[in-house]
């Protein structure tokens, strides 16, 4: 990389800074305190129509401090690493804590829950990449896509590569740090016919650059995805089964986790309040979290409060087996933390898997959704209504591309009506899922 980044030195520096902040908080009157800090550095290049468009070098840092005075809490953060700024940040957090109200649930996670098993999960794979090499990879990617016949324009290809260090420490004496890296390459292309322009994209993303897809493959896949959208029509209005493409299905898991999150539950802002141990999915469906998976996107041995992460099973034989809790939301609900402060890490589905072709066949006539638009998800009621694009399917065979329609139902009904899960698993993000076939959604088209 163009700028030198010594992750180990940064790790030592952050540790020193976090310890200093905790000591300062204590000295200035905090009963307890916690600190999160990070440093990230990266390069991003984008090319368009065979020319370099942008070269960006980034370096971000931040430190966030939370202090407790009795049951009162105050937080402050800064991107300035100087000693003076650190002191100002701690003082500000303390001054805020004098105005917030007593909260019986406030405080650090229990000391006994602090992670003690802190293995290296191999999520740090820096890429020794020069700016010129980065540009060349992006150019190769775009070129492969533009060479595909029918592609009229490019919206560009981008490569980004970065690494960083994060730390979490609290006044129990817990210090957890992790070095990490993330590299990705994406390409978006445009094609045009007499009905107008269409665009679509493909990307590859990994913690280890050796696991990235070949740039030309990404470019060609972007071209294939763009071209197949040309000539799109609108589907008929009616009730049909919907096949969600893997990345769209991952979104459904995301909505589920949002509703299982302690913060939504204690605020009564979830459609899954008071539903523990009741059926939600068909009994063959299981969903679990594997936070200690080596090399995976979201792996970490400790959560956002230093609690040891664990393999949570959220859905077991179709039933809600666990909520997703931090120690604060757990206290509010009279439960114990599930080690999910900061969210879920590496979600995996266990279920009988089918090929995409057999899911299409099972679907018969319906809609295969490859893109969703907008924010039409109501987490309080589970009501779901989103813009979509994809393909019209009859007798299990793809007929033509479709666009400008909505799909609507309620998440609770959709989960119950899950018919099958595909083996076409998308492993690029932290939620790994194949396609989902869901019965009986309302399509609004022409």
């Amino acid at each position, binding site marked *: 990389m163009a*700028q030198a980044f010594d992750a180990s030195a940064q790790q030592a520096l952050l540790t020193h800074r976090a310890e200093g902040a905790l000591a300062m908080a204590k000295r200035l009157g905090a009963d307890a305190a916690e600190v999160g800090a990070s440093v990230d550095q990266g390069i991003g290049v984008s090319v*368009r129509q065979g*020319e*370099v*468009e*942008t*070269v*960006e*070098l*980034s*370096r971000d*840092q931040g430190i966030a401090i939370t202090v407790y005075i009795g049951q009162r809490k*105050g*937080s*402050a*953060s*800064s*991107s*300035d690493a100087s000693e003076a700024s650190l002191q*100002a*940040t701690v003082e*500000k*957090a303390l*001054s*805020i804590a004098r*105005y*917030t*109200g*007593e*909260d019986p649930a*406030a405080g650090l996670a229990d000391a006994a829950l602090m992670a003690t098993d802190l293995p290296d999960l191999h999520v740090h794979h820096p890429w020794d990449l020069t700016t010129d090499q980065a540009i060349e990879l992006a150019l190769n990617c775009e070129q492969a896509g533009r060479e595909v016949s029918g592609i009229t*324009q490019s*919206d560009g290809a981008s490569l980004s590569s970065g690494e960083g260090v994060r730390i979490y420490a609290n006044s129990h004496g817990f210090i957890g740090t992790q070095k990490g890296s993330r590299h990705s390459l994406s390409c978006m292309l445009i094609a045009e016919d007499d009905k*107008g*322009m269409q*665009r679509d994209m493909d990307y590859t993303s990994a913690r280890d650059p050796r696991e990235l897809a070949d740039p030309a493959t990404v470019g060609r896949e972007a071209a294939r995805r763009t071209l197949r959208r040309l000539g799109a029509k*609108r589907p008929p*209005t009616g*009730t049909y089964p919907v096949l969600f493409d893997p990345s769209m299905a991952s979104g459904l898991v995301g909505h589920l986790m949002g509703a299982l999150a302690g913060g939504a539950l204690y605020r*009564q*802002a979830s459609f899954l309040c008071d539903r523990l141990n009741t059926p939600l999915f068909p009994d063959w469906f299981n969903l679990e979290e594997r936070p200690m998976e080596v090399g995976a996107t979201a792996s970490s041995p400790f959560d956002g409060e230093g609690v040891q992460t664990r393999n949570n099973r959220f859905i077991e034989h179709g039933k809600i087996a666990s909520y997703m809790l931090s120690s604060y939301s757990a206290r509010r609900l009279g439960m114990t933390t599930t080690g999910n402060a900061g969210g879920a890490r590496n979600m995996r589905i266990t279920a009988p898997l089918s090929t995409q072709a057999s899911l299409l066949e099972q679907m018969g006539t319906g809609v295969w959704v490859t893109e969703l*638009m*907008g*924010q*039409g998800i*109501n987490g*309080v*009621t589970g*009501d779901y*209504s989103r*813009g979509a694009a994809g393909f019209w399917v009859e007798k299990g065979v793809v007929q033509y591309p479709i*666009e400008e329609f*909505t799909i*609507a139902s*309620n998440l609770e009904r959709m989960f119950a009506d899950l018919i099958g899960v595909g083996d076409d698993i998308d492993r690029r993000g932290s939620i790994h899922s194949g396609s989902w076939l869901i019965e009986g959604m*309302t*399509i*609004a*088209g*022409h």
Partner: protein
Amino acid sequence: MTEHTSDLQTAVSILLTPGGLDLDALESGLGYATGPGVDYADLYFQRTWQEGWVLEDGEVKEANYNIDGGVGVRALAGEKTGFAYSNQITADALMDTGRTASGIVRSGKRLPGQAFKPVTAASYYAGVDPLAGLSADDKVAMLKEADRVARAADPSVSQVSASLSGTYEVVLVNASDGTLAADIRPLVRFNVSVIAVKNGRRERGSAGGGGRYSMSRLRDEHVAERYAKEAVRQALVNLEAVDAPAGQMPVVLGAGWPGILLHEAVGHGLEGDFNRKGSSAFAGLMGQRVASKGVTVVDDATLSDCRGSLSVDDEGTPGQYTPLIEDGVLTGYMQDKLNARLMGMSPTGNARRESFAHLPMPRMTNTVMLAGQDAPSDIIKSVKRGIYAVSFGGGQVDITSGKFVFSASEAYLIEDGRVTAPVKGATLIGNGPEAMSRVSMIGHDMALDTGIGVCGKEGQGVPVGVGQPTLKVDELTVGGTQS
């Protein structure tokens, strides 16, 4: 309106002095960024103080404070952009970031030096620190009032959360074309969200607003009470909502915040970058009819104290009133300097960036459809069966195909010219140019939103405003569940 140049002194003392810099030092800083072959470079200094207070269960349980700042250095050569930034505002940081940014080109002519010209611009908001406008006790009291009012408004209210947030932002821009401009941008917002429970049904209602002014104005205008009542009213409406219809039908959009339709259906497609690249559904349509007669849409950064307003944009260009569509004909794009130069047009004061650590690009400020002649009641009366949508959650557009969506958070059925049952939030989908040509009635009740919009583009969020009168779109697709 006051002359704007007085912000410059404040900005220098806040941004440059602490790191041992002054205006003279910027010349050498800019010198590093304008290496051989670079045809434009700028330095963007920024410091922000943000504060957020959150009430839950009748208590202010959380508050946070954030200080951020640094310098972003950009060098342009033709269509190429080199960019680097630093959290430090020092001579060393200017040298490092400047050299890195100008590294995109290694040969060519060196730009002649330009004398700095302080930009003269009108000021569309007062350069105050909005956080200092209220004491911490007053901030807590406002939040508690919202809680009290919401709980007293209806027995079905089971949860109330309220938030008060504010940002004090100071920026200074110095560019190789001689631009020297500063801006002090206050921004505040108050929000109330409630959950109401009745007969086993649970619904949310929310309301909020703010603008570029001091937090004290939020108190003086009694927004805690107003938004608490409004959030409860919306939740109660939603408790009675029936399933929304599915299919194509006329849609009447209420005045104000529903202007998000313009933002998605038209606004993004008229940003200069997408049109230069030819990736917008509106590309190449300048001077042509793209909307019904009577439709006039402007981007207006000059609205006093509005959330999206800008005295100067993030390249130092004064904020402007930019007509985009006039009487249905496409007449303007929103431009930053890069895209304006490459398209042979003038910048329109629409260059915006989330922070010093992000690249500027053409963005909307306050996007507004001007008032028409129709009475809102006549517009409702004209619809046999359709939807009347008065509040929205959010929207999205694919600028290339022109498809846009936006999701209603408060909507009603219209049956035989009368507003009847409330319907559950449904997503509306359409095609930008098509929807604009189906606008058949425009109300005389133009209103701005209350100041809640955040627009995202390429991962960067910026505050925006929208506004419109009540208007009728003859046909949009409504994404309900009743087919």
